[in-house]
């Protein structure tokens, strides 16, 4: 029980809220790494997923590759890239993007593939071109799954960005790794709580976005 009060006091200590080592600064760093990684992953995975979903070609190959990429050990990738290019943000971004692309890609692809064939037929019957079908029918219908992919990726990224601290970067992982080295377990716990809270917050944000963006006609399916 004293441990819990230690953690409580850790949050209460004003020193922990100021300066470079303070919670706000580390939070901002963590969000920075996470946001950047999610953006990059989306920039790669969304167009690719839409393309192969729409054309239906190469789907099996890409999905299997994506699943294999999910198996990449984050720690290993970070260490590999650091050993090759040195410390910096790049190793962390590479690992996080590699982690995030599979769920976004697979979900986008499945979302587009899963669009009712009749719906697409009707759209073409109405005279829509391939591009119009994509934008007018497939994307809106696929939106729930696409958002699910982004949401899954976001939570994984936020949780895994903790590892950035292992290679002397910032972020909330600093509280975990520094706490471990200094045997300050309230710091470790505090860092863990912050990361978990941030991950859950990201999930909540995506749920709200989903409510706002997904057309009511499709919402029941979600």
């Amino acid at each position, binding site marked *: 029980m004293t441990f819990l009060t230690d953690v409580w006091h850790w949050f209460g200590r004003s020193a922990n809220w100021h300066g470079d080592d303070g919670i706000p600064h580390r939070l901002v760093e963590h969000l920075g790494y996470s946001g950047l990684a999610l953006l990059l992953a989306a920039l790669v995975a969304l167009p690719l997923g839409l393309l192969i979903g729409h054309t239906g070609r190469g789907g099996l190959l890409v999905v299997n590759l994506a699943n294999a990429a999910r198996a990449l050990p984050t720690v290993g990738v970070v260490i590999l890239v650091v050993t090759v290019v040195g*410390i910096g943000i790049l190793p962390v971004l590479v690992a996080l993007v590699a982690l995030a692309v599979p769920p976004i890609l697979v979900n986008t692809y499945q979302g587009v593939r899963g669009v009712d064939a009749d719906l697409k037929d009707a759209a073409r019957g109405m005279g829509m071109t391939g591009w119009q079908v994509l934008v007018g029918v497939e994307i809106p219908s696929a939106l729930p799954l696409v958002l699910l992919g982004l949401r899954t990726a976001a939570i994984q990224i936020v949780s895994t960005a903790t590892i950035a601290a292992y290679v*002397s970067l910032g972020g909330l992982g*600093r509280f975990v790794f520094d706490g471990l*080295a200094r045997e300050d377990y309230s710091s470790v716990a505090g860092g863990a709580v912050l990361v978990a809270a941030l991950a859950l917050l990201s999930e909540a944000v995506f749920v709200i976005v989903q409510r706002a963006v997904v057309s009511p006609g499709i919402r029941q399916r979600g």
Partner: protein
Amino acid sequence: MRISRISLTVTAGAAVMAVVAACANSSNPLASAGAPGSSSAPAQTVTVGSANFPENVLLGWIYAKALEAKGVKVTTKLNIGSREVIYRQIKSGGLSILPEYNGALLAYLDPKATQLTTADVDAAIATKLDPALTILDPAAAEDKDSLVVTQATAAKYGLKSIPDLAPVAKTLVIGGPPEFKTRQQGILGLKSLYGLTFKEFKSLDTAGPITVAALKNGNVATADLFSTDPNIVQNSFVVLSDPKNLFGAQNIIPLVNKSVLTDTIKTTLDAISAKLDTSTLAGLVKKVVSDKDDPDQVAADWLKSVGLA
């Protein structure tokens, strides 16, 4: 019909798991691949542990291989990441033997300790050590924390010793392992003994590749490296001398849980300490870190060369 299919698959899965578990070769990570164990060996298995940097792993292997050669049954649990984990484990018997550094051990046991010479440090340790533990003879070999700068930095500010940092410390970033910030043989001591206040402290790793990279990139102006690190010579880093002996004695010394201590173990480890001096250790570390040789092989070769295995 369906249930039998399910149970068949589950049984097959369990069989796969059993095979896999057999391959895992015991529950100890990096368990040593079979110790000779003669008939006069003590029934107990001794567990040699180490911290997670190459020199300590090497020392762990040296102890382990030497003991094996004398017929002791040995298991290794190397590359452990946290000092508190290590210390708790050896107190409870999860680990039996550790290659320690007397100065660092004393600082851990008593952060206010001021002893500096080998004899004083060892005596102080003996009083502060948990009753379950004991230390054996220290080796001549030492591996001290040292403040290091790049050649360029040394030239720019005319740095040869730690006091030389006084005029410029306020503008410099210093790097070290996270615990460097809060310990006496670290930022605290640099302030209290040398009156140095730095611009910023950056958490790096335990004198490892991140620290070396940070020095080379200029992310930090000075950093804590270990004196036996071949990266110092390789990168032409300049070691700042420590006239006030902030980083006191750091002899390699075996820390042992008394419950496993036998005469065989004591004489074997003492014999190692007698033969280990700083330049020997530095040479061995270089083989592991720079030449990428395996630490267990380097350990075995050295023991053979000095007649201890």
